[in-house]
């Protein structure tokens, strides 16, 4: 049921979120998350996002299926960009529709935690002034955040 897109180009978060509710009267809540490329203290020229085509889509779809099995959702859209993304640009969208807000909030948060730790994307930082480039390191905090949703915990 979820719509999953992995793409180079930008997206319209408002239109994506509204599409989940349009024309229906059973949706009481739409929660959307938009992740942006932050500038780390004015030294970032851009992020270069590499991904594993095919697996990226599959992995996000698996996470969405898990969310749908867990909460009574009425729709979900996940879009993740790849390629060069400048500070201030959008990187990722998660939008979830449900009858009630608690399911929509929880599912959106779970999907973001999964995207951070399970979806095969890797960020490389390109510094202003030709400074040292480098792969962004995974955060242990993100693993802990994702572990919240694991049934074994």
């Amino acid at each position, binding site marked *: 049921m979820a719509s999953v897109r992995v793409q180079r180009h930008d997206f319209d978060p408002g239109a994506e979120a509204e599409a989940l509710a349009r024309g229906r009267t059973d949706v009481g809540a739409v929660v959307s998350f938009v*992740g942006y490329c932050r500038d780390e203290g004015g030294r970032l020229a851009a992020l270069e*996002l*590499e*991904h*594993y085509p*095919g*697996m*990226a889509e*599959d*992995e996000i779809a698996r996470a969405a299926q898990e969310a749908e099995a867990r909460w009574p959702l009425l729709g979900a859209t996940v879009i*993740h960009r790849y390629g060069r993304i400048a500070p201030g640009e959008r*990187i*990722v969208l998660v939008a979830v529709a449900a009858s009630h807000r608690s399911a929509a909030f929880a599912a959106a948060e779970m999907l*973001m935690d999964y*995207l*951070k*730790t*399970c*979806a*095969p*994307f*890797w*960020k*490389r930082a390109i510094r202003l002034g030709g400074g040292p480039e480098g*792969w*962004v*390191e*995974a955060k242990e905090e*993100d693993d802990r955040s994702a572990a919240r949703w694991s049934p074994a915990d």
Partner: protein
Amino acid sequence: MKALYFAWVRERVGRAEEELDPPPTVMTVGDLVAWLSGRGEGYAAAFEKPAGVRAALDRVHAKSDAAIAGAKEVAFFPPMTGG
């Protein structure tokens, strides 16, 4: 089987993909990592800390003890940093 490398694993190995034909003694993802590490400096550098490299078999996350038999595609990459 086809092997794919991403991010700094790709950079260290020096290629994005290749065909692999490991000997029959290589049965798990961990075996494959050990076998690849012996193929040259780049591979050794990529897999110097095996716990720091993740793997997928046919586009599904796989642990070190996962059997590679039947897999058409294996991929190695650092911990993910998307989102």
